[in-house]
């Protein structure tokens, strides 16, 4: 299954726009290399601070409005992400325990496969339920 690992932003990286140090970059590079060599990393990128970002806001029939960054509430912002393909939740946890973070928070969300909701006929739901029961009985 696939997971998206979302790295949260903080004041330091977002508002102050602090660049990671050479050492931090090196550590992250090493970690990424491990993920790639283990065949679990599908994608991953770091994002620039929200001062270079913008939002599009939709409301009813009026034209969408562009709002430029930076944005307040930097803890709600995203500094980067990975997409990992692993066996289960425990494996993604085990991998991310090895990430070179010393503080802050990451959020991990499972990526929906199309069967998760697309055209979910009773047969599909039943099938999915069975799979989950089997997985839990493991």
């Amino acid at each position, binding site marked *: 299954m696939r997971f998206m690992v979302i790295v949260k932003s903080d004041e330091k990286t977002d508002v102050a726009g602090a660049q990671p140090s050479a050492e931090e970059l090196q550590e992250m590079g090493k970690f990424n290399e491990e993920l790639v060599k283990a065949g679990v990393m599908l994608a991953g990128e770091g994002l620039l601070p929200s001062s270079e970002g913008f939002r599009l806001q939709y409301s009813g029939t009026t034209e969408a409005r562009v709002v430029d960054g930076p944005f307040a509430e930097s803890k709600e912002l995203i500094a980067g992400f990975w997409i990992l393909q692993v066996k289960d939740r425990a494996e993604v946890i*085990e991998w991310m325990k090895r990430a070179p973070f010393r503080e802050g928070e990451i959020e991990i969300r499972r990526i929906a496969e199309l069967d998760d909701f697309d055209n979910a006929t009773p047969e599909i739901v039943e099938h999915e339920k069975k799979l989950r029961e089997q997985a839990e009985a493991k």
Partner: protein
Amino acid sequence: MVGVTATTDSRSAIDAVWRIESARLIAGLARMTRDVGLAEELAQDALVAALEQWPESGVPRNPGAWLMTTAKRRAVDTFRRNERYEKKLGEIGREQEYEEEPDFTAGLDDHIEDDLLRLVFTACHPVLSTEARVALTLKMIGGLQTHEIARAFLAKETAIAQRIVRAKKTLGDAKVPFEVPEGADRVARLSSVLEVIYLIFNEGYSATAGEDWMRPALCEEALRLGRILAGLMPKEPEVHGLVALMEIQASRSAARVGPNGEPVLLMDQDRTKWNRILIGRGLSALELSESLTGGAFGVYAAQAAIAACHARARTGEETDWARIAVLYEGLGKLNPSPVIELNRAVALSMAVGPEAGLEIVDKLTSEPALKAYHLLPSVRGDFLSKLGRLDEARAEFERAAEMTGNDRERTLLLNRAAECTPRV
């Protein structure tokens, strides 16, 4: 699983550590003992020790090093008990003395990639049956447990356990060296390695509609093995070719089964359901493979290039059939097969017209290998109907319908036969 468990118990944490560390662990131990079977057993012993101790003590900070230390200590104990291994004991014992609070992973880092590659080549050694190679690869490099392999192959756990024991014994009896062969031997052995990985992939891929979650998971496992191998052998074009092929095929998983579990043919698939990340990865792996050969294709890269033609087309109509026909021609030269010829006929008919396809197919009708292959009359019927030769087309569709074992397909073919009856 969505919101099923709030916490991760130690058992699943240990499983996860095992999955991440076991291949390196076994590879390192195999270098030390020069015995892959023994290495695997020592690693399993360390896993058992972890299962006993970690639930109490918690997962250590560097679980890989913990497992290696434990396994290495057990190796020394084993050798001590067994005089035949006195020499090995000497070697390991000496090493052990130098390392007071040993950090084995640090020492291993220099060798780990070589060791892993040696492990892959040993597990896929031709002295073993194909089934044994598959089971050993999944166990030693994939880190799967015996019961998981048994489940994936719909076999009894005892049967798989026996297969693995026998395989390890065969390797030992044959004194298979723990090494990556060089020269011509290397090419032949690499193709065995790639074959094993692709077999695992297909086992999962063809079973997507199966009941058991483990079987589709085999696709992911094969992909992971392929990606690991690509990291270990970055200069081998066919390794990247195989990875490209698997990534692109896997990108279609969600589109190739209909709402009631029925297979959906490539041209009828909803292309918005294709996984763009996997397609992107597949295309770059293919590019890498091509750049290493200067554009020439091996068997896997050629198939990947065909898959890439489909992946690049946003709609079925946009498909570059002329290129696909050329690629099938090249593939046929590498690996002559009437089925590939039949595929080339279809591609050519799409690119040029049904006459060109029919010309090839007519030559295949006497092919003994296709005698019971319903797609031959089915494809021939299709060309004939497009050429307006309806009586002949109908006969071909009816013949194909008799030959197929699939009810849905039979209905489809009989419908096509009926369409060939001129309406009065």
